[in-house]
């Protein structure tokens, strides 16, 4: 038991990979065994994460459950992991969404073994980013998460669809989407890599806690340039890498394709967790390392955030593909996260104004909560899109319509989840969006005002989506014969259940999670 408690984080981190290894040796034909093994294996990290949550000391500052082992001494990098409120929230989200996604993947029939192995590898990659307290480890896991997702989209993504490239060369849509995702993200992380290398070279360590102190204490010239210039360049290197991941307008163009072409569970994880990696990067690395630059460029960040909110909403509204609509809604929702971060950045670290500080905290709390919430609702929305796609094999909103009487339970769940996405008071989305807006208003008034426009259109596209699927004249095509729609089944309901529960609980009683988040925020800034 001691061993367990002493190495909780390492266990959470590596259990999925071990499970993947076990699955490697299972017979490829026994699909049922593989699926259930994967599912049960993914529940273990969740259980451990809950354990960590219960034992998490909300009154203490600093990182908890810290573990540090020597790893690559030649370049002064150690295997250093730990959690604070921020990362714990994300870990919980990840370990929750993974089993749910695996359960959602039970309809995959082709090469199930490879699929599950890749999925579990992906989980380790994501967890690693959240748990890392060493920059190099952070980067390692950041990159590790890319390749499984590339293959998941590539191999199990939607089979239809083609994209025409230059000179009339055609490419399958999922190939295009996965390659774009990979190259875009890698190109972004290139800047990150270079900046990390520079940090490593300068300080001969990659350890986050010590880097926090030393980086900020740096004065004078660096590599022949004044420190401020170098910091500004490194700041933008970090920002670009994370901005691509969040995604922030205008680096978002990979997202609609990737989300749309990915298999259902892939989209769930992509929207649910992977996007949060970028935001997490902002919170964990950008703000603590570059408070001055962040403050200087907060306006620019806010601008981009607002663009994401507004354009995301507009774009979403204009979609005829249900999945693409939800994809753009991710852009829209993540914009709020960035808005909160920008607001906090603007206030800066050592601001004396009490009111501004309060707003800053509220904004940040809101941002982090929005990360969690969006994870839940986006995963839910994508799953529901998947449910209808399984049955109708179309995502085109114009082909659907008036399905409510046919699938009332599904309809109910869809409406519920959509409302969460819309930000209906009483559900989780409202809490986080309200906090962000409340926090950002005193700090970045104009931007917040413009963001409201986006919020308006959020309502518009959500309602439009629901209307086109559920309401209006029923499309007779789905009413009878072989195309008759079947109701949502038990497995699918079980997939949605935890999400629905959490959405409701947080919407009504958010304190239990906000406490944890708040402590972390206070410590960080």
């Amino acid at each position, binding site marked *: 038991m001691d061993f367990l408690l002493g190495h909780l984080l390492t266990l959470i981190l590596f259990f999925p990979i071990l499970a993947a290894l076990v699955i490697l040796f299972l017979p490829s034909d026994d699909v049922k065994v593989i699926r259930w093994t994967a599912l049960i294996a993914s529940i273990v990290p969740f259980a451990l994460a809950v354990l960590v949550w219960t034992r998490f000391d909300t009154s203490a500052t600093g990182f908890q459950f810290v573990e540090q082992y*020597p*790893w*690559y*001494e*030649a*370049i002064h990098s150690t295997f250093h992991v730990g959690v604070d409120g921020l990362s714990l929230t994300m870990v919980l989200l990840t370990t929750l969404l993974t089993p749910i996604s695996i359960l959602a993947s039970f309809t995959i029939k082709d090469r199930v073994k490879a699929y599950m192995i890749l999925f579990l590898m992906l989980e380790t990659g994501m967890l690693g980013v959240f748990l890392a307290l060493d920059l*190099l480890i952070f*980067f*390692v*896991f*950041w*990159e*590790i998460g890319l*390749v499984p997702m*590339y293959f998941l989209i*590539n*191999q199990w993504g939607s089979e239809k669809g083609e994209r025409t490239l230059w000179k009339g060369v055609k490419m399958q849509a999922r*190939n295009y989407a996965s*390659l774009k995702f*990979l*190259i875009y993200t*890698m*190109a972004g992380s*290139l800047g990150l*890599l*270079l900046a990390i*290398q*520079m940090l*490593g*070279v300068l300080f001969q360590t990659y350890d986050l806690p010590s880097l926090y102190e030393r980086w900020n204490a740096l004065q004078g010239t660096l*590599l022949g340039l004044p420190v401020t210039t170098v910091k500004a360049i490194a700041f933008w290197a970090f920002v670009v890498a994370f901005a691509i991941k969040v995604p922030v307008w205008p680096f978002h163009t990979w997202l609609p394709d990737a989300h749309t072409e990915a298999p259902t569970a892939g989209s769930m994880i992509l929207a649910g967790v992977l996007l949060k990696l970028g935001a997490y990067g902002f919170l964990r690395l950008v703000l603590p390392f570059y408070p001055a630059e962040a403050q200087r460029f907060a306006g620019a960040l806010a601008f981009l955030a607002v663009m994401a909110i507004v354009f995301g909403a507009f774009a979403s509204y204009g979609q005829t593909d249900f999945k693409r609509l939800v994809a753009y809604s991710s852009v829209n929702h993540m914009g709020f996260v960035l808005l909160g971060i920008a607001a906090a950045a603007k206030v800066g670290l050592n601001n004396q104004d009490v009111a501004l500080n309060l707003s800053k905290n509220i904004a940040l709390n809101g941002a982090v909560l929005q990360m969690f919430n969006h994870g839940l609702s986006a995963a839910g929305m994508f799953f529901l899109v998947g449910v209808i796609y399984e049955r109708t094999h179309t995502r085109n909103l114009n082909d659907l319509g008036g399905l409510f009487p046919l699938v009332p339970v599904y309809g109910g769940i869809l409406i519920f989840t959509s409302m969460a996405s819309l930000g209906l008071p009483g559900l989780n989305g409202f809490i986080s969006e309200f906090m962000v807006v409340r926090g950002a208003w005193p700090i970045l008034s104009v931007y917040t005002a413009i963001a409201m426009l986006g919020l308006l259109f959020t309502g518009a596209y959500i309602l439009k989506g629901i209307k086109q699927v559920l309401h209006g004249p029923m499309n007779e095509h789905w009413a009878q014969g072989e195309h008759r729609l079947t109701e949502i089944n038990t497995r699918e309901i079980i997939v949605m259940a935890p999400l629905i529960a959490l959405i409701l609980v947080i919407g009504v009683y958010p304190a239990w999670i906000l406490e944890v988040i708040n402590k972390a925020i206070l410590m960080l800034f």
Partner: protein
Amino acid sequence: MQFPILSVIVFTPMAAALLILLINSERKNEIRVTALAAATFALILSLWVYFTYDKAIGGYQFLEKYNWMPMLGISLHLGVDGMSAPLVLLTGVVMFTGVLISWGIDDRPREFFAFLFILASGVFGVFISLDLFMLFFFYEIAVFPMYLLIAIWGWVKTREYAAMKLTLYLFIGSVVSLVGALVMYWTSGLHTFDMLALEKAAFPLAFQKIWFPFVFFGFAVLGGIFPFHNWSPDGHVAAPTAVSMFHAGVLMKLGAFAALRVGIMLLPEGAKLWAPLIMGLALVNIVYGAFIAMVQTDFKYIIGFSSVSHMGLVMMGFSTMTPIGMTGAGLQMFSHGVMTALFFAAVGMVYDRAHTRDIPKLGGMVKPLPLVAIAFIIGGLVSMGMPGLSGFMAEFPIFMGIWQVRPIVAIIAAVSIVITAAYIMLAIRRVFFGAMPVEFEGHIGPIGVQDKVALVFLCIIMISLGVFPSLMFPWVQAGVQHLMILLGGA
């Protein structure tokens, strides 16, 4: 009297070659088994040497010295240090997997394995030679078997041309170095070829300035430095699979290593003077190699140019003249060696079945050859420098080293990483995934157990190193320590 393990490692392949030559050429299976036994033996010995090397003490270990010709100061002086121990291991690994992969060679396997082993002996000899004359001796032994191996068993279309080009290029490179080495011998006044003694000979700066390029670039030709890299892609492509594995996996490291041992370690001041030029050329290697690889349509040419690009990283690491950059270079030699052996093995397996390497004509190979696909993907990830695999472990310190010297170069070189990702992923997708062209349906047989063992073995090495870099970097660091002392001296 300590067991002369290093002599045994060097002469085992040679002895095996002689033995194999005596077997009747009809008895092919016996030939193969003998070859495998010898290769396994060499592998075990090299593992032994690697893991019993004492990193805490560092320096040269397992020393053996036999006076060969006292009149001119030539001795058979053998020893390994932290830099050469991984390379000895690499040779053992590639030899072992190379024999496994060559199991299917049906045309005169006797001569094939005999020549391959003579090559292996030469390679081992260079890595562990501490006498300059003997280093050349073994270096040259490693040149001519390549000619025969490529010309006889290579790809029919270009083998004669490629073999001759390769041989001439390498021979020219080596004799250029030879001139430099002989001049060094006389100028030192020590009347010995012993490198440990020559390390201490303080050559005048002007002398080093003139002769360092001869020695360094002569050897670096084999390392594939721009603009003398031209022999490499053609040579890689024309050679039969095991020979390509050896060629890119080990031989190019021979060049880089010899450039290090003879050039940088014996003429450190000259090295420091010329380092910027080397850095510039290596940068061209890295970026240019990557770009050219991107436009290739022949599967094997992609790997060939990718090798040019990755060897550029090794040279780059050397040129930084920093401990961390050198460490990275040492690691990269091993990591790239294993990775490229894997690549060529995989490519060979596809080619043997599809009889074409033209990417537009291939596709869907993952179904009949799943292990090959996975192995190639892992190799590809290593090549991109994906963290968690050995490539990252090697490339990262090199970049850190470059940062310490000239940050802008690091930024430019990093671009190659993205290019590499692009061409590797595209090649993977086109060859292994997608639809299989109709003409291959049913013609792609599975790979044999020897092939599987080889692939898995190589993958395990790359993954282990990536996850546990401590399996190799302490050795390389010990070697670099000694190197830095030589460089740091006045």
